[in-house]
């Protein structure tokens, strides 16, 4: 098993909040059975993603002109419930919008996400892990998605990539996923109340940070391929 270990230094966002992302690490191809796998760590938050596919799919779930995507979200403890279903749907739709499903009709792509440690910004970590696992499995994709979470603190300050303590103290937590081509918003999920002005502020802060993550993704692939260059 070949392991590629890349440690991103703390990446500064170009925003007046001058918030920093926590250290961002990504390890690809660490599982032997799946077709693609990735472990993404943002600070202490860690998610393991595995991709199987394109493979066989149940007759009832078969789509005639494209691949069926399925996301299985495994929480760290307990059985998945209603909240996890919403997460799964969100993650599946996010992946669907970047995967070129038309190239593998009547097949299935399964993405399994296992939470290893949740220390805040879990959703963005899940999206990033799923994206890296998809790249690793070489499922054809239109572009990449990079997700960033930010928290609006009581006094109005914006904290990028918050940990669970900051999330708890904040008045709102917003997660955005951006496509790597146009840097537009693919996915958006929020918690708490905030004004439209704050929303725009968070959006542009996260948008700037997502470019850092996109360029980190490129480095990760470069490192993975370095032996063949």
């Amino acid at each position, binding site marked *: 098993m070949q392991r590629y270990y890349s440690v991103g230094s703390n990446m500064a966002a170009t925003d007046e909040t001058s918030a920093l992302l926590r250290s961002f690490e990504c390890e690809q191809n660490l599982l032997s059975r799946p077709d693609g796998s990735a472990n993404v760590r943002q600070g202490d938050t860690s998610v393991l993603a595995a991709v199987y596919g394109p493979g066989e799919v149940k007759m009832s779930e078969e789509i005639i002109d494209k691949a069926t995507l399925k996301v299985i979200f495994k929480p760290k403890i307990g059985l998945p419930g209603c909240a996890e279903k919403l997460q799964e749907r969100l993650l599946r739709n996010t992946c669907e919008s970047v995967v070129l499903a038309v190239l593998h009709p009547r*097949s299935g792509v399964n993405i399994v996400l296992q939470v290893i440690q949740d220390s805040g910004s879990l959703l963005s970590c899940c999206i990033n892990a799923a994206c890296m696992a998809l790249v690793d499995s070489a499922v054809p994709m239109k572009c990449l998605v990079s997700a960033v979470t930010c928290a609006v603190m009581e006094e109005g300050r914006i904290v990028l990539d918050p940990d669970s303590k900051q999330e708890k103290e904040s008045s709102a937590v917003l997660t955005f996923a951006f496509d790597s081509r146009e840097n537009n918003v693919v996915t958006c999920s929020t918690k708490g109340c905030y004004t439209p002005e704050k929303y725009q502020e968070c959006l542009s802060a996260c948008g700037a940070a997502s470019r850092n993550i996109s360029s980190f993704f490129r480095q990760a692939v470069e490192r993975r391929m370095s032996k063949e260059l």
Partner: protein
Amino acid sequence: MADSVGKVVIPGDILSEFRASEKTSKVALGPGLRQEGEEVLVTKGGILRHKEPNLYWIDCHQRRYIPAKGEDVIGIVTVKSGDVYRVDIGATQPATLSYLAFEGATKRNRPNVKVGDLVFAKLLVANKDMEPELVCIDSGGHSSGYGVIPADGGFMVHTSLNLVRKILSPNCDILKFLGKNVPFETAVGMNGRIWVKAKTPKDTIVVANAIASSEHMTNAQIRTMIRQLLDKLSGF
């Protein structure tokens, strides 16, 4: 983009300025590249490769096999149904193999194929919308190496698709170097399955291990590794 040849590209990158063939003024795009309007879009993360005169593709670490027409694969017969065999080649769907697609086979004279047999075959039909179809004969009706692999002491290993391509490339001398020291038979399927058979089971395992562990090695490293293995084999 002539200057990104040999560099790493990721999905979403847009490429341009491809070198077209002088005769036809066309560019051939291989796996991982896709035309979208006027642009060429990268759909897989890997290294952009170019072959003269006009062929471009992405080299990536893929494990799942996507059937391509004309490729040689090793399959496992899973079902016998009517006049076709269903063969697992590691792709999305099982491939079909007609019992007439063997050398000298007729309606009366059926080939002796059992469930669980390994077959070395060529993909006749490989298309995203259709079931893949295998044949064990060439266009002249001769077996030319294809057919059922006899189950008497050989061993099949699963490897990555990348390793298969590496082994088959003319720059890689693992098979040549191994063969000089340990005589063995082999069949290499593009679906990441390699079958080997040497004189004794011990030799077979040595050869299989040598091949499986050579993925990320250079030619020099491979030679050292094989020498070490051979030394151990002869009891040093």
